[in-house]
């Protein structure tokens, strides 16, 4: 993913927090497809309330974790690519 890529929540997606849990539910309004993310996924979704550059997103995630794994950047990029593939986020590549 190119440096400076801005991540933006999909405009056709609504979300709900899982009751009693740390995860979240995402629904694509056009397709009706339903997705469930775990606690870390829900944190990422919350951090994307406003569009955010991918590096800044990584930093904010690391700040919230007690012990951020060394693979955080790779895991994050893979997760974001998956969300983009499902139409749940948009990737706007920087100049």
């Amino acid at each position, binding site marked *: 993913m190119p440096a400076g890529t801005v991540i933006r929540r999909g405009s*056709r997606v*609504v979300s709900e927090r899982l009751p*009693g849990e740390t*995860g979240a*539910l995402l*629904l694509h309004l056009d397709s*009706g497809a339903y997705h*469930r993310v775990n606690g870390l996924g829900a944190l990422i979704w919350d951090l994307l309330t406003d569009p955010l550059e991918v590096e800044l997103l990584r930093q904010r995630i690391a700040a919230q974790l007690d012990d951020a794994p060394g693979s955080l950047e790779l895991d994050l990029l893979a997760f974001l690519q998956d969300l983009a593939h499902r139409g749940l986020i948009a990737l706007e590549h920087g100049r």
Partner: protein
Amino acid sequence: MAADQERRPPLGSVHGFAVESELRFRYLRDGGGEPLTVREDGAEPDAPGDLLANLKSRQGHLTQVYQRAGRFSLHMENVGWFGVAPETSTITVPRTPYGAWLEGAIWGLPVALLVLSRGGLFFHAAVVEIHRRAVILTGPGYHGKTTLATALAAAGHRLLAEDLVRCDVGPPTVVYPGPAMLRLRRDVAEWLVVPGAERVAEDAEKVHLALDPGRRGTGEALPLAGIVLLHLGETTSIERLDPGATIRDLWRVTLNIPTPAGRAQCFSDVTQLAETVPVWKLARPLTREALAVAVAMVIEAGRAT
């Protein structure tokens, strides 16, 4: 002129509605509700509007759903056109000789669209009454939902719905009794008997039964005790699920108007429902021996909450 315009008394209740019609129905319960007018028409609409969905029944019959200016038009293959006008709470139906079948069709998708256009949930589910509360039985097709509900009815628990159920998420969360009908597989109808039920029609796969008028009760809403998700298993077991583990299954059996606004409204209701109502997973093999055990488990779960 004034006498002609007087409202007829309601014929009975279904899905929380008091039905007014010149048609005659077999499956209504006593009681009232919001007014709902059902009349014959069957004319093809000049401009049905946007096609929302193509739905295929298990028998392969196609139903097309259209929407225009807040109204819905449904075309059921080999039957004709239905109209749903939420603003006047009116459903128009085609002229057809298939009385019992037509009535079952009216209390399905047309009523569901009327309710969904105003908010509320509709599930593919059977529902029984246990200790004056409703217990929803739901799951994918061919998981024995109707057979289990019939067995519970045979054991003395009032059958509130056998295919579609209307639910308003609260507090309180309530369920409205649906039509007092049962459509049972022919082989199951040979050995599973609901006292007082009358055979009113048959088709290639199923026997259509009208519940005993003396046992079907009223259309008054009941509080929802819980939801049982049906799974297939090698042994019979029941376990309470965490809310987060239930939403995918509940979403799959929820009807929604396939528009962004329709989906968003149902999604919000389903997540709220999962948070507030107990949900169990009942796994069982589809055998007569396991059915008796499953009945006992559902009754106990319904009583325990």
